[in-house]
């Protein structure tokens, strides 16, 4: 067998260096990463990267920062398996491999000029944060912006400092709810679907951006449709186990869609008839 060395293989990684790391909850860990020479990742909100540790493997991770943040990018990793257990032990200064960005992100140019309703459940806030911060950094290019967030308990809130900031801003409407409160919790208690009927919106100029666990989608979409938001105005980010990120390996295939290439962001209109989607 002969061997050729290649520089333009899609599997080649870039070296990312961890600038900051912070444990957000018992399971989720935040990383700020820089590429060599401060090279920009050039991503769109909603895209993902493959994070690699040689000898352990690779996993697809949502990019959590807006492309308006230059010089570095943010990831949030939940410990769910072997790879993420190793990854979530890293410290500032450590290196990881980065491939990407991959996939079709949120349709930012379609959204411009319109009202946006964000609906995030649990760690669904991680990919949505890339778009929320993008909208905040370009605030006058968008109409009314509402953010609804729900999670299981107050301890599961990932970005509490940013949430406080969003709550203080006059140009955002921010609502947060937990399924189960604790003695210190003064906010809403109940499912996120309970917040949707309260939102006042103009359906024809509102786009809903939804991300959360698969079980949440069915109920949230039903509420959004009740508010007369058109199916083409509802965008979802689907979670899946992309392995190659290139539309080849087959692992993230949902009926005829490859989540890594055709998604991870889809309009409800595109996936409502895909039986494997959610």
């Amino acid at each position: 067998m002969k061997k050729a060395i290649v520089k333009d293989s899609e599997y080649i990684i870039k070296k990312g260096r961890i600038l900051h790391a912070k444990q957000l909850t018992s399971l989720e860990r935040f990383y700020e990463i820089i590429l060599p020479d401060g090279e920009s990742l050039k991503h769109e909100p909603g895209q993902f990267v493959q994070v690699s540790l040689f000898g352990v493997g690779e996993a697809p991770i949502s990019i959590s920062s807006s492309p308006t943040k230059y010089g570095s990018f943010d990831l949030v990793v939940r410990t769910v398996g072997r790879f993420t257990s190793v990854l979530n032990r890293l410290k500032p200064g450590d290196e990881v491999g980065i491939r990407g960005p991959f996939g079709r992100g949120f349709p930012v140019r379609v959204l411009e000029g319109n009202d946006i309703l964000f609906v995030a459940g649990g760690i669904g806030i991680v990919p949505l944060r890339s778009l929320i911060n993008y909208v905040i950094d370009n605030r006058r290019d968008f109409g009314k912006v509402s953010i609804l967030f729900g999670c299981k308990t107050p301890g599961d809130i990932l970005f509490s400092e940013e949430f406080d900031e969003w709550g203080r801003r006059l140009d955002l409407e921010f609502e947060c709810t937990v399924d189960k409160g604790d003695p210190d919790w003064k906010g809403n208690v109940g499912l996120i679907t309970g917040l949707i009927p309260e939102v006042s919106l103009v359906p024809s100029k509102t786009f809903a951006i939804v991300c959360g666990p698969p079980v949440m989608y069915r109920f949230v979409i039903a509420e959004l449709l009740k508010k007369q938001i058109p199916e083409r105005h509802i965008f979802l980010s689907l979670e899946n186990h992309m392995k190659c990120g290139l539309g080849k390996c087959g692992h993230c295939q949902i009926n005829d869609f490859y989540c890594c290439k055709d998604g991870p962001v889809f309009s409800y209109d595109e996936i409502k008839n895909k039986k494997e989607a959610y």
Partner: protein
Amino acid sequence: MPEMQHVILKKEKFDYFIKSLARQSRLIAPVSRGHNSFSFQEVHDSRDIALKYIPTILPPKKYFMPQQETFLEYDKTAGENMQGIIEYDDYILFGVHTCDLAGIQALNVVFRDPPKDINYLYKKNHIRIIGLECNDYCDAHASCALMKNHLPMGGYDLFFTDLGGYYFVHINTDSGEKIIEHSGCFDRAETSHHKQLQELRDKKKEIFTKEVDIDYSDISSLFERAYDCRVWEELGEKCLACGNCTNVCPTCYCFDIVDEVNLDLTTGRRYRVWDSCQSEPFARIAGQENLRENRSERQRHRFYRKFSYQVEKYFRYFCTGCGRCSRTCMAGIDLKETLKAIIGEVGSN
């Protein structure tokens, strides 16, 4: 018609030709493995080659997309350092049937679709292909006439047809012509040879008739109606989820990516390895979710990748009609019978 495109090889010169191929490159051809099974293997002599063979255990895809294929070598001594590599060899594949040529053509489209897979494309460019026509059916598992793959449709450098005392040869590419020139044992094809080829092709029209009662162009619309068929439950009850069907399929290309650490614990390789959508963990995602938890869903997925999903993406059927999946299935799941069952449930058009 420019006569340079067609030549003949007299059978007494066949051994000489094979030896000349083996001198030019590593030569791969079908070889008997006993018990009516065959495999593509390296040969040096025409006596090693099984000229009458049913589809090999594994299709020739193993040379284009090997079971294991390294694409990175890494060294963690000073951080996450690596280099991209391609492992390849120069091959001539001799005796590839038209069903398998169609399989290679399907894979070419997949791996050429952006983002391009340079590991595949580089390998492919180091392989020359000599096709071999089937004058009759290999066995009853084949459905090549239904899939319109019983006649040559390109995808080869040279194409051989056995016409008794000689092979009629179509030269399809410049590298095919170089093989002919290099061996120096071919003769001009005369009008009588062309006539004999036409006679065989006419005879094949009688022999090869669509094996399932549905038109080629109606198959993808059949699958538009087949999603909720009972037959998927029946397949799910039989299926052992062994993955044989996907491993032997000439157009299955799903893979997993795996790291292998050397004993020094700092160097190693990252490679792809064939994977199967029939295995339970294949579509498992973080948490407890699984997109296709049941065997019936996974069998349906396999059939839809052959007749529907990839067809929309790449404008071609991903079933070549080779019959390998039916031949190899331990549970007796049969592709033609499955198509018939779907037609029985939802009609052929």
